[in-house]
């Protein structure tokens, strides 16, 4: 499958800080790719580099087959970009903005525009500066979807929005999903889980993993082991065991590379007194909480970053 976005060793350094560090990423055509990670992980920086808003320090990226550093002008006729940080032409009315943007896009679909205006209940005559944050995001969505872009890039689009607005935006997005590729960064794991096909996890500039959502769900399990006797945690545990903890006769951990037989064997080797093992599927939110907490338990040194990457990859 063709990659709509493809990066190699994509990096950005601000002073002594690596905001994005050697990211290798591939977003297949037609995917809804969710880029997740804690605050300050480098998601926005990565997206801004992809959109040629800021320049990478090292590495390269191809977006829709174009080198991201040459992504200007006409190339944006096929890209829709919405960001929580983006400034809109505040002095314009919603209708004025849509009229204005229409002139830039040969593929602008006026029927879709009207549909989006109705769907989002946009007040065409009102100036953008007089709109609420949610309404502004809806206006930004409408102006970025109406020309049926081949790639939609969304940077934290749902941040700070009420659930109703979020649902409306996701609905609008899902309707276009079959004919486009969506790259979205968000904290809203629950919403993303419902419609994302791929997911990548970025932490302190490192892309810890990037894979299909179904594969991710398959390989993460919350493992509960009932022991015959209380036992201390061994010092050496597999890297794929995240957040291991014991309480009385119960051992719990998150397995980031779950395979029923192999996991049972690993447990039996380290806890011979294990009597019962249960494997519970995890929500995306639980998976990322586990990864994030595991990451915080490490220091931020490059060596431990590598360990964390190995643990979840």
């Amino acid at each position, binding site marked *: 499958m063709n990659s709509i976005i493809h990066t190699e060793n994509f990096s950005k350094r601000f002073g002594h800080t690596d905001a994005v560090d050697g990211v290798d990423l591939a977003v297949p055509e037609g995917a809804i790719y969710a880029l997740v990670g804690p605050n300050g992980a480098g998601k926005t920086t990565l997206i801004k580099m992809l959109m040629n808003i800021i320049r990478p320090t090292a590495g390269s990226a191809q977006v829709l087959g174009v080198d991201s550093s040459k992504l200007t002008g006409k*190339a944006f006729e096929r*890209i829709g970009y919405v960001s929580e940080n983006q400034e809109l032409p505040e002095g314009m009315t919603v209708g*004025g903005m849509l009229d204005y943007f229409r002139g830039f896009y040969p593929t602008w679909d006026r029927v879709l525009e009207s549909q989006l205006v109705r769907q989002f209940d946009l007040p065409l005559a009102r100036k953008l500066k007089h709109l609420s944050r949610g309404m502004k995001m809806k206006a930004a969505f409408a102006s970025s979807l109406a020309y049926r872009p081949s790639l939609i890039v969304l940077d934290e689009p749902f941040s700070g929005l009420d659930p109703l607005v979020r649902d409306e935006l996701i609905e609008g997005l899902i309707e276009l999903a079959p004919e486009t590729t969506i790259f979205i960064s968000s904290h809203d794991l629950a919403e993303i889980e419902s419609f994302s096909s791929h997911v990548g996890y970025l932490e302190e500039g490192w892309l810890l993993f990037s894979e299909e959502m179904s594969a991710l769900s398959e390989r993460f399990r919350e493992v509960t082991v009932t022991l015959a006797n209380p036992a201390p945690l061994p010092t050496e545990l597999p890297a794929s065991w995240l957040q291991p903890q014991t309480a009385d006769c119960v051992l719990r951990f998150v397995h980031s590379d779950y395979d029923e037989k192999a996991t049972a064997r690993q447990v039996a080797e380290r806890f011979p007194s294990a009597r019962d093992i249960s494997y519970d599927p995890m929500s995306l939110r639980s998976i990322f909480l586990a990864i994030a907490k595991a990451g915080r338990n490490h220091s931020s040194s490059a060596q431990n970053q590598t360990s964390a990457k190995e643990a979840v990859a």
Partner: protein
Amino acid sequence: MKQILHIFIKDIRRFWPEILISLATLAILMYSAHHWLMPHRLLPDSFGPWNHDWENLENSNRQRTAMLSALVPIAWWLLIARVIHAESPVGDRQFWLTRPYSWKSLLAAKLLFLVAFLYLPLVAAQSALLISVKLNPLASIPGMLFNLAFVTAILVLPVVAIATVTSSLVSMALTILGIALGIGALASAFSDARILTGFLSPNSLSMPVGDHLNFAFLVIAFCGIVIVLQYALRRAWLSRVVLFGTPVALAILSVAVPNLLYAAHLWVRSNGNPDMAAINHTYPPTAAGATAPFQLAYGLDEHHQTQVHRGANIQTGPTVQIDIPLALSGMAEGTAVNYDQILVKFEAADGSRWSATMPNMVYPSLILANSHERSAHFDMPLAEYDKLKSMPSAVTITLLLTELKGTKNTRIPTPIDDAEVPNFGACVPAGASLYCRTAFRPPQFTVTTPEWAEAPCNVRTARFVQRGWLDWVGNFSVEPAEFGIVPAHTSRISMLQYDHYKDQPEDTVWKDRLCSGKSVTLTQYRVVGRTQVSLNLPNFQLPALPEVKK
């Protein structure tokens, strides 16, 4: 082109209030300027020789116009800031960065906007004003283009460049304020410095042709590079460094370094004495075989004596003001000189020496072909005077001169009405003066010569009533325009000598009259070079100072 127009039309729709403010400010300025330039239209019945209402009116209109002249750039800057910042090339949050904008189209659209709502209105307003004050704009096209270059270099493009490296009106205003303060600080730092170029160019006569225009083009090119750089690369810090760092570096290289070098040169080579090499470079002595502009002789006779008076100078303390009469002869018709500076050397029999160069303080500084007498006026420190007064000295007096040649003569018959004066501008009698308007610059240096009538004539029909003295207006620059938004300048040519004698009735003191049917001749001069003329007085004795009355 489609995208350029698309952005342009959007900006018109969005910024029409700012456009209106800018146009209204410009219109008000031109309206005020019209009244300043044509005060006689407001006071048609009281424009006589002794009525000074027009003068007060002209002054108040001039001041109001000057204030409004400051408002127009502010309105322009507001317009520039709003239109550039609508799609600011600074920052990473602007909506246009991820839309199908071509930076070239964006920049072209912004420039088109400025042409449409800043330059075209300016040209239209300037043309309308010139027509309204009886000056022909078509005859002033070079001046208009020159003026536009100055306006672009001083008021527009630097502000556009600043707008492209700032992201808001506030940051832009603070930047302009900072630059103004910086320029003020630099000017203050160098105000006492002896600037090399300042010495070599002792007054405004000497600005070489094209210097201002070259400077304007340099600024335009430099700002243009910064603007294109910022739009193409969107690297605000790089553009800021180029925009603000380059002028500072150039100022240091072109002002500070030459000043320091020149100060060092004076200290090492001249030890406080006049720098003869620099003087001879700027005012070359008459070459062997060539004719000096005039011959100089000691003008001592029964009416003209060397005079000395006590004086004081803030920097050097007590001084003696010395006037040595000079006699001039042999000056060719149609020529003139401007007496710029004087260089004086004293060498006494006992070896005492004193020399100095100083600006001419004798008025008028202009010496015409029919002039025969002049004085060498200079200040000598009292201590030097005390050393030199007791014995004869060998004195050399050197006048440093700008040579002039008469070019155009224009005769205006009287009575003069408000009308265009060919090769000059438009003039109207105003009291005892000619009140003249010229397009885009003060007139070329022009000397007036009234044709006096010996017999009295009817004062009511002749606007000019009395004997004048030598008067001139204008400057020697040959550039077709000076910087300014108002495209006209005014100048007054006096036709009257205000000599009043207490023991005589006023009417009898004026011997000559400018009557109806006579004329006034305007003669324009241009600079042809610089030179120096010297006089040696081998056995000169300084007179004693008058006793101080107690």
